[in-house]
């Protein structure tokens, strides 16, 4: 890597995948009219195409006086491409196969009560592609027949109600972009650095445009007691039948909705198809998937995931219960842990910021471990309780640098340092770690996850 780094720009192998001799042969064979040979040669090269694309070849202008990628027109410039609807549902390029959600080795013993992390290091903008959305299942996921799915509303209501999906989808809908973050995102880093990349440190956050019906509409249809019914229980239809307590105040604000749409299509099964609850700003466990029932009540429910898990242990041995808001947080996604910068020079430092209390107001970035800061550009429009993309210019001089980002939301709250967070909560509370993240760029160009004193 040293050679590649010192020698300048990255270039792909000639012709992307055929070497010079190969090209000569192909051309020669072509002249002889052996079309099948050509077809096979390119097909074989295409199958292994991702391999040399990764090669960081640092040669300057070649002796033949130009880049063969320019001088020798590639097949795709000279041939006929594929037809429409080759894929009824299009897929990412074959060169993007490394961009996958992943489990963190050793974190859980079963895959059904587990998590997979979104590859934040490879994502742009604020929308998480639905197939890369992080997953958290409590008792395995299902693909439920929407014609058989029902939503029931009961409890402190005038009329217990039941709705089909057809009926819910007839009601006036809203489409809103919101982040969802697991309360345990960054949990493994409370005490010390534990995982190498932003995928594993922060990958339990995703952001989608969700479409559905405000819950208040359904509660009004059932004649809910909105005054005395201060709490709502949301319950899923899967094996775990996940339950969580939701404050009526938030529902009355109109922000909470039942969603069937995600990024222009229906929810993915892993995300709760055909119906899930959207509770903006609140940790993901409250966004109950496969939503089957809403109960209006006058007391909180102390469900398993608010009485055994998703409770925050404090140094005095008390657990904070009903800790729901995801406080303001940010992370630089590139350059980030496990990556290698290709050379000195210009880089765009980019990352994500979000707040469960409202909009991101400002993000500052430091490249010297938090000593000095510059304010980054926010990509707008900045939205309520949504991921916000930030960018800032940086010229790397090749010396070690510690990159951090620090977000502020429109309540004025500023994302804390590890020192500040640990001073109040210790290191054992598992949930709601929103500390400032540090990435160490080493002279070799390799970036490491670090925590600073």
């Amino acid at each position: 890597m040293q050679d590649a780094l010192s020698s300048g720009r990255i270039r792909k192998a000639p012709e992307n995948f055929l070497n010079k001799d190969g090209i000569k042969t192909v051309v020669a064979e072509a002249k002889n009219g052996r079309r099948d040979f050509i077809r096979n040669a390119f097909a074989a090269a295409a199958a292994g195409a991702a391999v040399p694309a990764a090669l960081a070849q640092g040669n300057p202008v070649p002796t033949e006086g130009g880049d063969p990628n320019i001088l020798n027109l590639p097949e795709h410039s000279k041939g006929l491409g594929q037809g429409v609807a080759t894929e009824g549902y299009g897929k990412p390029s074959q060169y993007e196969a490394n961009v996958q959600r992943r489990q963190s080795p050793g974190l859980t013993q079963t895959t059904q009560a587990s998590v997979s992390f979104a590859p934040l290091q490879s994502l742009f903008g604020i929308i998480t592609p639905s197939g890369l959305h992080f997953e958290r299942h409590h008792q395995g996921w299902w693909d439920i027949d929407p014609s058989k799915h029902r939503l029931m509303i009961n409890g402190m209501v005038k009329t217990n109600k039941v709705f089909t999906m057809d009926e819910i989808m007839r009601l006036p809908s809203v489409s809103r972009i919101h982040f969802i973050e697991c309360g345990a995102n960054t949990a493994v880093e409370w005490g010390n650095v534990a995982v190498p990349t932003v995928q594993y440190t922060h990958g339990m956050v995703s952001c989608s445009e969700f479409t559905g019906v405000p819950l208040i509409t359904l509660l009004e249809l059932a004649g809910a007691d909105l005054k005395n019914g201060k709490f709502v229980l949301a319950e899923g239809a899967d094996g775990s039948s996940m339950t969580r307590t939701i404050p009526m105040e938030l529902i009355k604000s109109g922000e909470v909705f039942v969603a069937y749409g995600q990024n222009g299509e229906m929810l993915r099964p892993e995300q709760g198809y055909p119906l899930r609850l959207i509770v903006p700003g609140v940790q993901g466990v409250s966004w109950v998937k496969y939503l089957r029932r809403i109960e209006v009540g006058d007391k909180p429910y102390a469900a398993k995931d608010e009485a055994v898990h998703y409770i925050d242990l404090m140094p005095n041995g008390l657990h904070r219960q009903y800790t729901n808001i995801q406080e303001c947080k940010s992370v630089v996604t590139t350059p980030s842990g496990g990556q290698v910068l290709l050379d000195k020079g210009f880089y765009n430092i980019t990352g994500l910021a979000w707040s469960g209390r409202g909009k991101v107001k400002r993000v500052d970035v430091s490249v010297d471990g938090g000593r000095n800061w510059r304010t980054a550009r926010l990509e707008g429009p900045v939205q309520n309780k949504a991921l916000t993309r930030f960018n800032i210019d940086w010229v790397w001089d090749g010396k070690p640098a510690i990159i951090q980002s620090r977000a502020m939301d429109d309540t004025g709250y500023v994302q804390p340092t590890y020192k500040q967070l640990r001073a109040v909560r210790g290191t054992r509370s598992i949930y709601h770690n929103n500390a400032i993240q540090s990435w160490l760029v080493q002279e070799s160009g390799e970036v490491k996850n670090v925590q600073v004193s």
Partner: protein
Amino acid sequence: MFRFRKAVLTAALLAVAGWASAQGVTKFPGIGREATPKEVAAWDIDVRPDFKGLPAGSGSVAKGQDVWEGKCAHCHGIFGESGEVFSPLVGGTTAEDIKTGRVANLQRTDYPGRTTLMKVATVSTLWDYINRAMPWTAPKSLTTEEVYAVTAFLLNLGGIVPDNFVLSDKNIAEVQKRMPNRNGMTTDHAMWPGKEFGKGAKPDTKNVACMKDCVPEAKVASFLPDYARNAHGNLAEQNRLVGAQRGADTTRPEGTAPATSAPAAAPAAAKPAAKADSAGADNKAAMALTQKHSCTACHAMSNKLVGPSFQEIAKKHAGKVDYLAGKIKAGGSGVWGPVPMPAQSLSDADAKTIAVWLSSGAGK
């Protein structure tokens, strides 16, 4: 008369606006219907801390032990102590905790982990969750008596109720008064999005957005040790192949130059178009069945979980299709260790497919 007037009014509104804009239930005519009492009873299963929703009934510690050993112990351990599959349920609480309602070990930073009984403040939570989600592969299959019994057995393991106890809807409120961590929760924080708990505290950290000379020179206080370099797989294969940066080749020590012609990173990247030959398809089908029938709750591909890994089984019983198919259906114990495998209800065809796959090497 009243009905007539309402009808006229509605018609008038329709005539004026062209929309049905009356209030309440008439706002969205045709949407939703009343749920029947039977339907509500089928789904409204939650039990609140004040025991609203708890069905009448009872179950003994002794009965609970029987249910436990048959349906729970293979994941949670005979005494609820196992941490092999899930976090341990029992342990870490004392008779003193039952008196104070605060688990003393929670204050110790050196105490290795937290069990369910150390954390849970409300006995209703145990009853509700066992009832709705257990056992792991067959949730909602326990009778009301079994749920009472298993809850009683768990409480007995924690020394909260005696060996001869019969837990019921009549005495569960008394049991609540003995929960070891019943006074261990606080809602005094700023992270509930409402005022329902009456606190509305301010956030507990107060960073300021300093811009210049904010802290002394940063020192790296924590980083991953070298031996963990490749613990999450080769990071070169976890990054895009184009752009401002690549993933580090963590199969090599840091600072060593990677091979220039064929980086180790590449093969995985080149796999997207992997061919599904017929063996691969068979393997896939068998693995899908192990998911479908929840075999994977206890068996993993290459590492031991509750039961042996598929690959261990494949090695030990190579070629023994009929033996394996029989074992899958009937269950057994003593071959791989003390934890028994319960009998499984799947079709002979599915059992055979899995058995063939196992007996021929459990390939991917």
